[in-house]
């Protein structure tokens, strides 16, 4: 699956908040068209890594290349252009409460002024259909939807502008196992249909095994293991082994007290 030129490349990325080091030389390659899932415990820096790529947080040092283009330290305008390649599914869906569902989905399209409101609405309804939601949902407000439906709407919004790269921030968190699997299936189907590269972060191993071509594990601010999904059970790494089997005892010590 991996092409010669990676879509996203992280080299020696560092990020600290005050004295707390979160990313400590993270290195990662995401190939074009592949679905990479980064696993890691709570507080291991997964979200921070994605936010650094998206430019929501500025990396302290190191290099992040998107399509070979350096994005650390670029101007706000450049950032806006690069971000057009991205779609992001937020952990809590992050739908805009004040807007009806269809306007949520069409938000990026309207912001880029590629469509009139009328056309954008049609596109939004088509995207909603793609995630299995009917046109009548388009008129509702996010607060009127269940958690699973909100995730679907957020997914429709993430793919509305046909992004090249889609980020999934813990897509199954907070859902029941069945709905989680439905969302997993949708993610696979959608990324295939759009032909997008996917970078997900999760600590849900069932989800990771299902949607990933390749899995990488983040621990202590570094990627300590990465390989094809099928090989993770044979990974010769005590940290990975402990994580995928969910053992409390092992080399990873969870900070019970902050």
């Amino acid at each position: 699956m991996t092409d010669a030129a990676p879509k996203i490349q992280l080299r020696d990325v560092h990020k600290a908040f005050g004295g707390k080091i979160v990313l400590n030389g993270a290195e990662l390659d995401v190939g074009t068209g592949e679905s990479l899932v980064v696993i890691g415990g709570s507080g291991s820096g997964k979200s921070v890594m994605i936010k650094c790529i998206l430019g929501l947080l500025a990396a302290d040092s190191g290099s992040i290349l998107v399509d070979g283009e350096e994005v650390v330290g670029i101007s706000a305008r450049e950032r806006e252009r690069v971000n057009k390649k991205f779609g992001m599914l937020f952990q809590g869906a992050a739908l805009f409460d004040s807007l009806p569902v269809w306007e949520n989905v069409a938000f990026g399209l309207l912001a880029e002024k590629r469509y009139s409101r009328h056309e954008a609405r049609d596109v939004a309804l088509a995207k909603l259909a793609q995630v299995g939601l009917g046109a009548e949902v388009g008129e509702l407000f996010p607060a009127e939807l269940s958690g699973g439906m909100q995730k679907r709407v957020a997914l429709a919004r993430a793919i509305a502008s046909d992004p090249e790269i889609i980020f999934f921030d813990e897509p199954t968190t907070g859902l029941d196992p069945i709905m989680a699997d439905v969302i997993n299936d949708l993610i696979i189907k959608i990324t295939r249909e759009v032909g997008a590269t996917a970078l997900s972060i999760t600590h849900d191993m069932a989800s990771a095994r299902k949607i990933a071509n390749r899995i990488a594990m983040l621990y202590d601010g570094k990627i300590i293991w990465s390989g094809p999904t099928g090989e993770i059970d044979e990974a010769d790494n005590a940290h990975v082994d402990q994580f995928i089997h969910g053992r409390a005892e092992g080399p990873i010590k969870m900070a019970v007290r902050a």
Partner: protein
Amino acid sequence: MNFVQIIGRFFLGFLATTGRLGIFAGASLSHIVRPPFYPRIIVRQMVEIGYFSLPVVGLTALFAGMVLALQSYTGFARFSAEGAIANVVVLSITRELGPVLAGLMVAGRIGAAMAAEIGTMRVTEQVDALTTLSTNPMKYLVAPRLLAGLTMLPLLVLVADVIGVFGGYLVAVYKLGFNPANYLQNTWDFLEAQDVISGLVKASMFGFIVTLMGCYHGYHSRGGA
């Protein structure tokens, strides 16, 4: 801990906050004048800040004017200076009370609501979502609110001025037995354009400060209730 150390820490924190607020204010002002603009949101905020504040601002202005006329009569009657009541009412309302009352009412009604709204958006990552959808949150959330505050407060105060003076007129004419034509003539004679304008400029500043603080605290809020 050393006493001086506490003072120093407090002072440095104060300076840092002032700086952050200044940068925030400058950035939001620059976003007001640079495209893209969001007319729908600007209008929505104007209606929220201006139109929906009318009842409470009008009511306070009415009573302020009435009380002003009544109480200054109590005082002035002792020196047979009743003629100055119209003058006192119109100047205090336009120069001071109009802007202050409108500013206070809007601060109570809008400031906290704004901080809560934007704060919720920040905590639920909606502000981040804006960025990923090619929208600058400063432009989309902050600039329209500041613009609405800057423009709507003077309009509110204009209305409050009229209602306040009318309140004074009601009490003077129907309670204290003034001649309506004389009272209005007195009001008009002493009023200068500068009195009204200085009040409106003040109002604009109050509107700016109220919305700025609401947006700033919402924008920089983090985690939990």
